[in-house]
């Protein structure tokens, strides 16, 4: 059989390119359909929810724990991507200039402690944010990546550890305390992340979504001692009414958040709301947040707390061993 040399070269070339693409981790069409039972279990069980950690009761017999959490990303997302267009920069900087001050004023008014997850570069370029947060004494500062990087896309444990370590150091320097909590940027994690958070000696994470209530994170089916205070895209302002949001009606969105709180209250677990100063700190949205706070405050037995306070309470109640580095 004679195969023309040109066609042979072409075939070899194409096969080589396909192999290279596979090696480089290019997405393939439904590769999981070919995985064995063991492979399927291994991938699905890599990071998973362990035992529930909702305590018998919250402090002072409260019925529900409420954590209002704020991610001041400012313009770190475009900056990390190398996008320095003035509109992208200005839209993010709104968070530092208008959003954070307006939200802090509202939390002052209602005397509510809050957790701030701050990309280190956002803190570097707007150090007044942490100064203002720290001045209040009752808020928490925790890590949210170095520059809101996407660790899943990096898939590089050395680089990911460098960014986590730098972020911890910078926030510690600005806040005066070493952070004990993490929220991963864009809620993406690599397969290395949970191990690195353990290595960093963190008390809790707040990026996973397997439950509504607090639980322990399992890594390859082993308990990690890391507490998960779960988040969810549907109680996050960004996909709902951010600039790329699907349903930009502040009133209707806050109604949904309230419905979510109502069930948390009924079930006696926790309510973790995720907000961004450049979104919920907007004049069109801040009034609706105040309405939600008023509503929650009108109920008896609501414990407003930082994620750190919640995680520490859970840890003490559950008799978990102390976290390394704590």
């Amino acid at each position, binding site marked *: 059989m004679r195969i023309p040399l040109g066609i042979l070269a072409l075939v070899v070339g194409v096969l080589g390119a396909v192999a*290279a693409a596979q090696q*480089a*981790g290019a997405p393939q069409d439904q590769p999981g359909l070919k995985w064995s039972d063991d492979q399927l279990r291994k991938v699905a069980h890599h990071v998973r929810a362990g035992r529930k950690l909702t305590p018998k009761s919250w402090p002072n017999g409260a019925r529900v724990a409420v954590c209002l959490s704020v991610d001041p990303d400012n*313009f*770190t997302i475009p*900056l*990390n*991507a*190398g996008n*320095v*267009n*003035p*509109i992208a*920069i*200005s*839209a993010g*900087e*709104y968070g530092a*200039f*208008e959003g954070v001050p307006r939200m802090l004023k509202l939390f002052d008014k209602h005397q509510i402690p809050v957790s701030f997850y701050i990309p280190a*570069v956002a803190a*570097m*370029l707007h150090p007044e944010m942490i100064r203002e947060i720290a001045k209040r004494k009752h808020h928490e500062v925790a890590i949210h990546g*170095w*520059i809101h*990087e*996407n660790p899943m*896309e*990096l898939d590089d444990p050395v*680089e990911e550890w460098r*960014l986590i370590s730098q972020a911890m150091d910078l926030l510690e320097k600005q806040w005066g305390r070493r952070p004990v909590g993490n929220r991963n940027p864009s809620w993406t994690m690599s397969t290395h992340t949970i191990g690195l958070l353990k290595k960093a000696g963190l008390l809790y994470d707040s990026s996973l979504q397997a439950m509504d209530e607090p639980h322990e994170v399992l890594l390859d089916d082993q308990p990690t001692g890391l507490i998960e205070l779960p988040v969810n895209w549907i109680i996050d302002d960004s996909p709902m009414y951010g*600039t790329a*949001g*699907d*349903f*930009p*009606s*502040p*009133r*209707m969105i806050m109604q949904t958040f309230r419905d979510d709180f109502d069930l948390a209250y009924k079930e006696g677990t926790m309510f973790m709301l995720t907000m961004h100063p450049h979104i919920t700190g*907007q*004049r*069109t*949205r*801040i*009034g*609706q947040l105040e309405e939600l706070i008023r509503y929650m405050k009108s109920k008896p037995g609501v414990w407003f707390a930082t994620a750190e306070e919640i995680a520490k309470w859970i840890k003490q109640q559950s008799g978990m061993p102390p976290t390394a580095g704590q």
Partner: protein
Amino acid sequence: MRKPMIAAMVVAAALAGAAAQQARPDRQPGRKWSEEQLRRESSHVRAGRSLNPKAWPNGARVAVALTFNVNNSANQLARGDTAVVAMTGGEFGAAQGLARVLDVLDRHEVPATFFVSGVADLVDPQMLPEIARRRRHEIGVLGWSDENVATLDNAAEEGRLLTRAIDRIAASAGRKPVGARGPNGTVSLHTMGLLKKAGILYDSSLQARDDAYELLLEGQASGLVELPNNPYRNDYRFLTSARTGPGLLPSPELVFETFRDDFDVAYEEGTLFVLTLHPHVAGMRSRIPYLDDLVHYIKGKPGVWFATGEQIAKYVKQEARMSN
């Protein structure tokens, strides 16, 4: 603008290096930048000091700028899209929308600012004389053909289009524009330098604050006033037009309720309310009554100064003793 070019070359070189190493482009170059690079790259165009005055004219509490982007079918033409029916969706702005908007403004006797694309004026030259003859409105520039200047990223070409637009609008409106808004919701790293060169007083494209502020170019005070725009105070993404189908929240009632909430906080904080609407979107029958209601509501409050962008920019500049 040499620095961005050098920076771009450095980034490109870094990208090329990373690509050679990993056979995949690094889409997150910023994570490797030094503190100095991060500061420089985020400071090409940046918000300077707030220019919110101690008081607005006659002791008013808040300044209100109703602004309209008159782009009609200009962007479709920039893209070379000749689709006939789509073209009429933009034409609606000239044929019906603008007259309805002007009618609301006449009834309430309030001034407004119209940012006009050169091509919108070329296609429908009857619009600008209609606006100008009211004598209380301002006409600003919205690029030549509602072009995306960010993807264009070409200082010479952007400058050519801006000059062409300013010249055309000056001829049609009888006065050279002093206010500019980035066409198609975009600006480039060249835009603010070009506006300064063109002698523009203020821009209304950026979003760093709710109140007026001074623009810094490469860290230096530019003399340019920014009257911030904001996608949450803009009808486009919520309501859009028949041209591209309904927007994300095609309920005029819910949308204008949000605009009113925004005004309420501006009033409470004593700053500035800049609303951005489009005649071919807000000028539709199902929407125009809500504009009428909003203006009525705002007028019902004491201490509101309705003004053009130009009047506001001149006032804040003078109060802040800002130099050119």
